[in-house]
C-alpha cells in the first residue's frame, strides 16, 4: 500500500451565515415547495428500522443565554447493532432502514430542534476492542460559528458505561462531562441543550 502524501490543503471554513436554512432546510426559510417540500435528513427512521425509538430536542445557546434561531444541527450515529451505514463500515451489514444521519434546523421562532431516531449500539474505541458508551455524534453550524462544531450526546441511563467510557474519561475537566449527557424527560425522550460559550459551555471536539 502506498502512502498518501498531503498535496492539497483543505479549504478554509467560512461561517454558514444567517441563511443556512435556505440551503440545508429550505422549508424553515420559507421555501415551501422546493425539493418536493422536504429536506435531507428530516426523517431518520421508518417502520422497519431496528432499535429502540428515541426523541431528542433542545436548543443551542449563545454566550448571553439566548437560543440561536438561525442554525442547523446534524446527527451521525451507529444503528442499533453498533454499525454505521457507511461505505467504510467493514465490520458487518448495517440496518438498511437506517441511514444514521439526520439534520434539523433550530426553529426560526423558538430556537428549538427536534429529532426522532433510535438509540445507537455501542462501538469500539479507536483501534481497540474496548467499547464506548452509546453516543450520537453532533455537528452544529450557524451564523457566528466560523468552523462547524463537533460534539457528542451520551445517554443518562448508561451510568456504568459512561463511567467507563474512554472519551468521557480522558476529559481533563471531569466537571464538564455533564455537558455531554442528555437530560431524561421520560422514557426514550431526551433534552440535549448545547451551550456555545460561558458557564456550562459544552465540550466540543477536534476530531
Amino acid at each position, binding site marked *: *500500500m502506498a*502512502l*498518501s502524501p*498531503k*498535496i*492539497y*490543503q*483543505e*479549504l*478554509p*471554513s*467560512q*461561517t*454558514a*451565515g*444567517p*441563511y*443556512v436554512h*435556505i*440551503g*440545508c432546510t429550505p422549508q424553515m*426559510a*420559507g*421555501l415551501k415547495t422546493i*425539493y418536493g417540500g422536504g429536506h*435531507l435528513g428530516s426523517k431518520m427512521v421508518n417502520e422497519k428500522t431496528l432499535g429502540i425509538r428515541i426523541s431528542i430536542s433542545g436548543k443551542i445557546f*449563545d*454566550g*448571553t443565554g439566548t437560543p440561536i434561531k438561525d442554525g442547523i444541527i*446534524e446527527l*451521525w*450515529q451507529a444503528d442499533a447493532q453498533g454499525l*454505521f451505514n*457507511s*461505505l*467504510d*463500515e*467493514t*465490520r458487518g451489514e448495517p440496518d438498511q432502514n437506517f*441511514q444514521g*444521519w439526520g439534520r434539523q434546523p433550530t426553529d*426560526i421562532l423558538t430556537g428549538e430542534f427536534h429529532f426522532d431516531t433510535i438509540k445507537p449500539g455501542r*462501538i469500539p474505541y*479507536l483501534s481497540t*476492542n474496548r467499547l464506548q458508551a452509546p453516543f450520537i*455524534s453532533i*455537528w452544529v*453550524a450557524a451564523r*457566528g*460559528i*466560523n468552523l*462547524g462544531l463537533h460534539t457528542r450526546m451520551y445517554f443518562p441511563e448508561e451510568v456504568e458505561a459512561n463511567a467507563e467510557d474512554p*472519551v468521557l474519561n*480522558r*476529559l481533563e475537566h471531569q466537571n464538564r462531562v455533564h455537558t455531554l449527557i442528555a437530560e431524561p424527560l421520560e422514557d426514550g425522550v431526551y433534552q440535549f441543550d448545547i451551550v*456555545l*460559550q460561558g458557564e456550562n459551555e459544552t465540550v*466540543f*471536539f*477536534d476530531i
Partner: protein
Amino acid sequence: MTKRPPPSGGFFPRNFQIHPPAYAPDYKSSIVRSPKLALVSIGNGLSEITGPVFGHEDLGPTDNDLILNYSAKDKSPIGERIIVYGKLMDESRKGIEGALIEIWQANSAGRYRHIKDKYIGPLDPNFGGCGRTITGEDGHYEFRTIKPGPYPWPNGINDWRPSHIHFSLFGPGFSQRLITQMYFEGDPLIKICPIVNTIPDKEAIDLLIARLDMANTIPMDTLAYEFNLVLRGRRSTMFENRPEGN
C-alpha cells in the same frame, strides 16, 4: 454503491492556521457564539471516519440548476448566467465520488429568499437560491445559476459582502464535514470583507476564489467559473494499527 477497501488511516489533522478562529471580533456575530474553552482532541475512530451515504435518487433532476429549479415555466431569473463547476477531492488529490454538495445564495440584487431578509434589493419571483448535487465518478460537480449580487449587512456601519455562494460539503467521513463560501475572481469587496478576513492566512483566501474559465463558457449564453473543493485527506499507511480481533 460499492464498498471501498477498508480505510487504513484516520484523516490528516486539521490545519487551524488556515481556518478562522472561533473568536474573530471584527465579525461581531462570532463574539458570543465562539466557545472559549479549547477543543478536546479525540482523534479519528469509527464514528469520525464513517459518514452518511447519499444517492442520486435522493435528488431531483433540476436540483443543481438554480435557473430552472424555482422559475415559472418559460421564465428565467434576472442576472448573469453562470456555470460553477469543479472537482471535489481530498488533500491527497483523490476525487470524491458520490458526495453531497449543497449551495445557497442571494439573487442578482443581493437579496435572499428568506423570511428574515429585509434588504431593499427585490426578490426575484423566478429565483429560489438553493441547489444541490451529488458528485460524479472523479468528484466532478456542476451547478447552473445566476451570479449573486453583493449586499450590505449589519456588522460595521458600512460592511458589504462580496458576491458569494455558500457551499456545504460532505466527504465519506463525518470529520470532513465543512461549510464554506465561494467568491468571484476580481471582486474588490473580497479584500475588505470582515468575514473573508476571519481567515488568518491571507494566501488561503485564494483557495475560496473561483476563476473565470472562458474555455468552458457557453458562447452567447453562460459564463463558467471553476471552483475546486478540497476536504481533509486520509492517511494510508501499512504501519497503521488494525482493530484487534478483526
